[in-house]
């Protein structure tokens, strides 16, 4: 017994597109609204054990400390920067470099080529002494200058031991 309807065999099946397009557009709008370009973030390690904890370890090689002193005005702008009590003079404007490039250069002169075998960088630490009001962005720029440099897309590390001197209250 043949039940199939012969008339329906050539009939075109039409999909109902409207609900699907509705949903697809809703999804599209959801993703567009939640889309946000987020810049990647990275960290600078600083190790600051609490005062009073004995830190002398006979196995540890004596480290040299470079002192970076950053002074600011009351608005938080950087006014002067010294490395081991030697003032750093900012390069002339228009040279494309700033005082932090000078700081990096001086640190490199002190520790030698960080990729070379005789580099003093692993046994050197940098202590930052900053005015209370100094904008935090200058600290990060200072830490960036002493902790490494970019060569192409590669980061060449210079000094990894970084610490802060106790806060310097002013005004």
């Amino acid at each position, binding site marked *: 017994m043949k039940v199939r309807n012969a008339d329906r065999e050539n009939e075109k099946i039409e999909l109902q597109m409207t609900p699907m*397009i509705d949903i697809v557009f809703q999804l599209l709008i959801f993703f567009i609204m939640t889309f946000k370009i987020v810049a990647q973030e990275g960290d600078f390690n600083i190790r600051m054990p609490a005062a009073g904890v004995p830190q002398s370890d006979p196995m540890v090689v004596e480290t040299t400390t470079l002192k970076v002193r950053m002074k600011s005005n009351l608005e938080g702008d950087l006014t002067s920067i010294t490395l081991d009590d030697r003032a750093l003079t900012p390069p002339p404007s228009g040279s494309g470099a700033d005082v932090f490039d000078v700081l990096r250069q001086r640190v490199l002169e002190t520790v030698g080529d960080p990729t070379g075998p005789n580099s003093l960088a692993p046994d050197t630490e940098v202590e930052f002494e900053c005015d209370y*009001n*100094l904008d935090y962005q200058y600290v990060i720029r200072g830490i960036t200058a002493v902790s490494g440099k970019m060569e192409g897309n590669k980061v060449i590390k210079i000094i990894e031991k970084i610490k802060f001197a106790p806060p*310097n209250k002013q005004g």
Partner: protein
Amino acid sequence: MRIKSRKFGTKAEGDMTPMIDMTFQLIAFFMVLINFTEVETDERVVLPISELAKPPETPLDRPITIQVTADGQALIGGDAMEVGGQLELALNRERRVLGRLGRSPASVPIIIRAHKEAKTGKVQEIIEYCQSSQFEKFRLRAEQEIEGQNDED
């Protein structure tokens, strides 16, 4: 003279296929880019920019994030507090929770996300409070420099 088409009664149907193709491609694009990361962020905090700020290769082991706003308030887990007794209480609470989990505060990294115009002294005060609660590992967070971006201010 009548030029009107005799097809007046027929249904005009546009081809939907290219539009649906494009829409699905757009959806796929946005789905791939959607970011579900649980980084603690706050719109009050604009990080300083650094060319060396690269995301860590291995994720940190359950760090504590302390954010510092430009006016010197500390934010822990979305709660704003003044740097002082309140912060000390919050840190001691964190230390007790860590103690119950069997972790020592010295092994827990503290991520400091400070606004670029926050006072350095405030950030150092926060570090001191953390030190008095026996935290010792600190990570100062900065935003990666995007090429062509110039931080002149």
